[in-house]
């Protein structure tokens, strides 16, 4: 519970009490009937209903993929792999699907990265380098490409060092550091001179991981990126209040 009884705008903070008194409900429920609709005649969950299991086809596979894409949390890579290589091909095909909602398309991109899908490199590269894609989509594409173990991703990531959006460039730095290929060094050197300090600092840090000493100008502001994480002992910080 908040010790401060006033919000930052000065208005009193309303704190409901924890209830202990029992409720006193005495109204008779109003009877309501249920809407009805037909039941599925096929199911992707054999044994869960009387419906027949779905036939093994791309239509059924797509239905299964959509179910996984709707999961709130991350889907383990083994779950995707259990659907087989055809599922990966279908995910690549879905990148061009105009009916797919943006957030689901981003999930498809991330999933292809998770799967290390070599067959998706070309299309992910197209997304990363297509300025008509949103900055967030480009960031997702960079993130996915960096997780695919293939030398072809390095030049694609390298072509994005001039992306106008710092979030994209920062992700490119992360991925160029992650791919652990010496071909990434020239691009990281460019990014170590980036106009955005956050990008330049991170690039300098990644260069050191490659055993390359960045330029003096970069070094002055280049702390080692702390990829290891330890629980902090000091009090947590409070973000700034945002008003409408």
């Amino acid at each position, binding site marked *: 519970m908040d010790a401060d009884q006033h919000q930052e705008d000065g208005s009193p903070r309303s704190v409901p*009490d924890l209830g202990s008194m029992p409720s006193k*409900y005495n109204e008779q429920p109003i009877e309501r009937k249920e809407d009805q609709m*037909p039941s599925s005649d096929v199911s992707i969950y054999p044994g869960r209903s009387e419906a027949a299991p779905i036939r093994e086809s791309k239509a059924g596979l797509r239905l299964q993929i959509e179910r996984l894409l709707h999961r*709130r*949390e991350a889907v383990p890579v083994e779950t995707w792999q259990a659907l087989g290589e055809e599922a990966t091909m279908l995910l690549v095909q879905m990148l061009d699907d105009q009916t797919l909602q943006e957030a689901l398309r981003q999930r498809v*991109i991330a999933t292809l990265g998770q799967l290390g899908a070599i067959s998706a490199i070309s299309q992910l590269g197209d997304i990363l380098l297509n300025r008509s894609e949103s900055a967030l989509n480009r*960031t997702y594409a960079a*993130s996915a490409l960096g997780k695919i173990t293939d030398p072809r991703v390095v030049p694609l990531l390298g072509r994005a060092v001039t992306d106008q959006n710092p979030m994209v460039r920062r992700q490119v730095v992360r991925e160029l550091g992650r791919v652990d290929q010496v071909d990434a060094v020239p691009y990281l050197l460019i990014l170590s001179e980036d106009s955005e300090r956050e990008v330049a600092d991170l690039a300098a840090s990644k260069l050191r991981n490659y055993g390359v000493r960045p330029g003096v100008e970069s070094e002055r502001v280049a702390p080692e990126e702390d990829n290891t994480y330890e629980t902090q002992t000091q009090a947590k910080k409070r973000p700034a209040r945002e008003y409408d």
Partner: protein
Amino acid sequence: MTREGYGRGRVASKRELRALRRTLGLDVRKPIDLNSSPSDVIAAHPQIGKRVADRLLGFRDQHRIRTPADLYQAGVINERQLTTLEQVAYGDLVLRPMITGISTDSANLYVDEPFSVQIAFTPSSLIRPELVSIDVRFPSGKVGRANFTISEEDHGAGRTVLGEFVSVEAGEFHVIATIRDKAGNIHRQSATFGVFTRNPVQMYVTPSYWTQSGNAGAPKFDFDQRRWYCYASVRWVNSTSSTVNLGRAVTVRMTDAGSDIGTFSFNLSGDVVIPPMSTVYGNLQTWHPEGSSAFDVFHAKGDLTFQYSMSGSGFTPTTTLIWRTMRVIGYNIIRVGDFTATERSEYRRAAAEIASSIFQSRDMTVYGVELYRIEGTPEMDADKARFRFIDSQDEINALRDKYTIDNWFMDVFFVEGRWDGAFGSSPTNGPVDKEGNSSGLVLRRDGDTINLGQTFAHEAGHYLGLEHADDDDGCADTDPSDPNISDNFIYSSSLRDSDVITLCQIDKMRRHGLVHSLTP
């Protein structure tokens, strides 16, 4: 003597109605017949655009179009435009099935009377359609979905008939149909139908917040004004062939265990004018000040029955609703990244309205949403750059370990993207004191506000102690073999409109320290 109650309300504008339909996913365009669709329809199609439409129409004047590839081979469109066109248009030779219409078996649908839905699609396409999926929303608000195989006969005929449906309330019945072909492509279409009542003019009042029983509304207490508020949406349905004007006066009669405790009236902002065979939407709220009987009953965790009525054009529609008190949760939404004012407004709405309406079926709702940002100091600016696109679970832990808000609301870190593409994540049974590195939810940008609201509710459910409904969750009333388990809000692949919460689940959540009671 204190007046028993006050109220206000209004009829929804057309713009609000359009926005509502958009949130239901009902703005899907019909496919284009490249040889016969009118030129203005083609030009107005958002995925085709006027420039491509002009070139397409010029080509069509000279040639029949067999497939969109004819346009590509003639140099009229490029490869990217071909990919688009193949998904929204067809020529004489139909490559893949597309839904061309959704209809019902009778011109008018009536309450309690069975009806079927017919899905028409392009017949004899080269790629065979295999499944049709339907998502429906009944006037009562109940949603449902089902999958059906398409027989050889239906493929040849270009249609499949699904029945039987029965609606128990009048209003609008929405259908989204998805056809799935053998190549893994899909095509989607939506339609809305009026459901009418033999009792010619009806009024339905639906509480904005429901209680645990699922058949009572939950009033909200305003601590500043010391009033109980009863928020509700209203639907007026006219099943006659004439316009009906119910005026603007609403009368509310309140009873406690059958005994009258008071009646009051108020005016809506305008008359309720319902065109023939139509539904009109609106909202109303009543409030009950300290000293009134309703205030005393609600403050003692009691319940009341309200009877709402209006009168006009010779009709007096009446409806009753029970109101009960409830428990609450709150969200601190902590923005990490750049979000437009519209996006901020939408994620607030997702938490305050959509997630709240998911908790509607039980006696819990979203009490408040406060907005914060990690931005504005050199340290926070650096953290914003670092955490706006979350790259690992370690980063999630680091973010949660560093920031919190010292109040009783759940902390929700709202980032632009996540490496794993997940909509969100949360610890199960998160800490009440919000200490440590598992002290909040981490959600990512999602332009679909309904889906985002579902994520808020789902992840809050985890934080408040729930496991997935299809896992070993310790609840006897969540059966993983139930064919409708996907309707549960905390099913692992809960859909954007999954809103079922069981009694066991709500009882578990109510034990968490961040769930409070509104009453003393």
